[in-house]
């Protein structure tokens, strides 16, 4: 029996397998390509890019935590113009399918970044979808994270949607640090997002007990890794359930949070994810995006399940 691992992200976007990299955990491709062919990954999700080059924060930028880590990088990156000039052509040259993650300090900046990306000569050939990282601070709203506020989330999407062809679906990336994630999901989808990526990191702090000061230069960091996988499963479950109940518009969910093995990927899928990203596990095992896809295929084969896509949200039926 051959297993069909095709993942359906909607709007005609089909991926050969459902395992993607998570934004910010794989840079922009060249580094992982030194280990294996990134064109074989379901899709390569790039590091969130803003309009201008970003130095990121001072260090320490990370702290290890039980089965996870805190990071406080500060979206270090080249800016959209250098990204379009250097990174996108390179991704195209190796035949990668890219999902480009965009960010901004204002909703207008998100739109400006999307416009520059769509105008790139390599856009049509390389960019399968766009991930809108609304889990970053809104400078105009006292630094409150966009995805913590339904109105701010909707405003970003409303400005980005007209910049992007409908055939390139927009996935809004949500934070779990909210009272009711289905409210944010509804706001993003109603404003034109064609899918959701869940979850971004959870906010945390570590104290250096030796120096008796916060460990991270930027004070707070995003918690990621297997420690947060149950939170990801919960968030995906709640939003998928709300879609099934007709309370919010139905759209594909890309699951992310603590995936380390094929079985972990299956768990997020059964909760409602149509594809799954591997993030922090890459730091432990840089071959994990390829390995997780292989393990998932083996798992389905062993269970006699012919099609991955048949498993999306199945746990809600049992």
């Amino acid at each position, binding site marked *: 029996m051959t297993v069909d691992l095709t993942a359906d992200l909607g709007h005609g976007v089909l991926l050969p397998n459902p395992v993607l990299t998570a934004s910010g955990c794989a840079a922009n491709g060249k580094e992982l390509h030194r280990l294996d062919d990134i064109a074989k990954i379901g899709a390569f999700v790039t590091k969130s890019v803003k309009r201008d*080059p970003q130095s*990121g924060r001072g260090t320490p930028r990370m702290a290890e935590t039980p089965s996870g880590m805190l990071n406080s990088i500060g979206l270090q990156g080249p800016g959209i113009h250098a990204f379009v000039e250097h990174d996108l052509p390179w991704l195209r040259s190796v035949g990668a399918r890219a999902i480009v993650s965009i960010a901004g300090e204002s909703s207008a900046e998100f739109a400006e970044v999307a416009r520059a990306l769509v105008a790139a000569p390599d856009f049509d050939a390389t960019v399968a979808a766009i991930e809108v990282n609304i889990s970053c601070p809104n400078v105009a709203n006292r630094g409150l994270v966009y995805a913590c506020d339904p109105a701010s989330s909707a405003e970003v999407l409303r400005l980005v949607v007209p910049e992007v062809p409908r055939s390139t679906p927009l996935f809004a990336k949500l934070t779990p640090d909210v009272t009711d994630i289905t409210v944010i999901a509804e706001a993003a989808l109603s404003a034109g997002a064609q899918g959701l990526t869940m979850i971004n990191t959870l906010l945390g702090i570590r104290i250096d007990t030796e120096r008796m000061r916060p460990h991270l*230069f930027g004070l707070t960091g995003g918690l990621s890794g297997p420690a947060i996988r149950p939170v990801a499963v919960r968030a995906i479950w709640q939003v998928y359930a709300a879609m099934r109940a007709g309370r919010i518009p139905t759209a594909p969910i890309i699951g992310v949070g603590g995936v380390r093995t094929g079985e972990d990927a299956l768990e997020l899928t059964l909760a409602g994810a149509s594809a799954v990203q591997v993030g922090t596990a890459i730091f432990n095992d840089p071959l994990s995006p390829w390995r997780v896809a292989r393990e998932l295929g083996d798992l389905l084969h062993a269970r006699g399940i012919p099609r991955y896509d048949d498993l999306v949200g199945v746990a809600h039926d049992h």
Partner: protein
Amino acid sequence: MTTTAGDRVHSVRAEVIAAAAAGDYRHLVFLAPEIAAAARPGQFVALAVGGDTSGLLLRRSFSIHRVDPGTGTVEIVVADAGPGTRWITRLVAGEAVEVLGPLGVPFPVPDEPTPCVLLGGGYGSAPMFWLAKVLQDKGCHVDLVLGAATQDRLFGADLADRVPLTVTTDDGSAGITGRVTDPLSDLLRTSGATLAYACGPMPMLRAVTQVCRPLGVSAYVAVEESMACGIGVCMTCVLPVVGADGVTRMSRSCVEGPTFDGARVRWEAIADGRVAVPGDCLGSPASLAALNHAAAQGSSR
């Protein structure tokens, strides 16, 4: 003076061949022929700790002590600095460990015979013996200085059989009492060295650079920044480094280093276990604020 940014990185499950105490450290030999064949002095390896289901996810990076392409062995020196490195120090022969390598940019080696001074602080001396041999094979005169807080924290004083050696300790338990940089000026003058290589803690690397610069000596330093991945994707091991274009960028120690021209590192931003972003760094918060301010001024006119 080549870099390895585009070279293949190998991910191997390596068998530990030997493990032994070396002063306060653990000297580990493992079998990784692909890495041994490609590695050069100054490069490093990144080890996963605790096995496949470990709750400690981040890689631990170690400067390569030496390799033997003939036997396929790679050697490192490990200090027990916490639960992750402790797990590595407890590995015994016959066990396996996940290793990534060779990683990073090696020390640049001159094409012509050039007198050099090599300095190692603590277990930062690990790559210096191999580097000394590579330099001597090129016809370079090499002086070696090893320093540490105490005798137990010196590594490899017994390995320097073919290299003129100076030892310093902070407490005087071995060699000269003082810092590894104390004998440097005299050594540079007497040997006529125009190149220095150093590996060790940040304050030492800064001090080496400060001694070398006024004398017109190039100082290449290998930094020991904490890294989560070792391969350039996590962006945690950054330092402010001035590029060939004169622009300072937050540069990843793992792929743009760990060896840097000391004169290009913005040492003033590094202090007390922290690295700040210099205001004139590309894309620094300060420069972006100025940019936004200028844009706002422009639009108001």
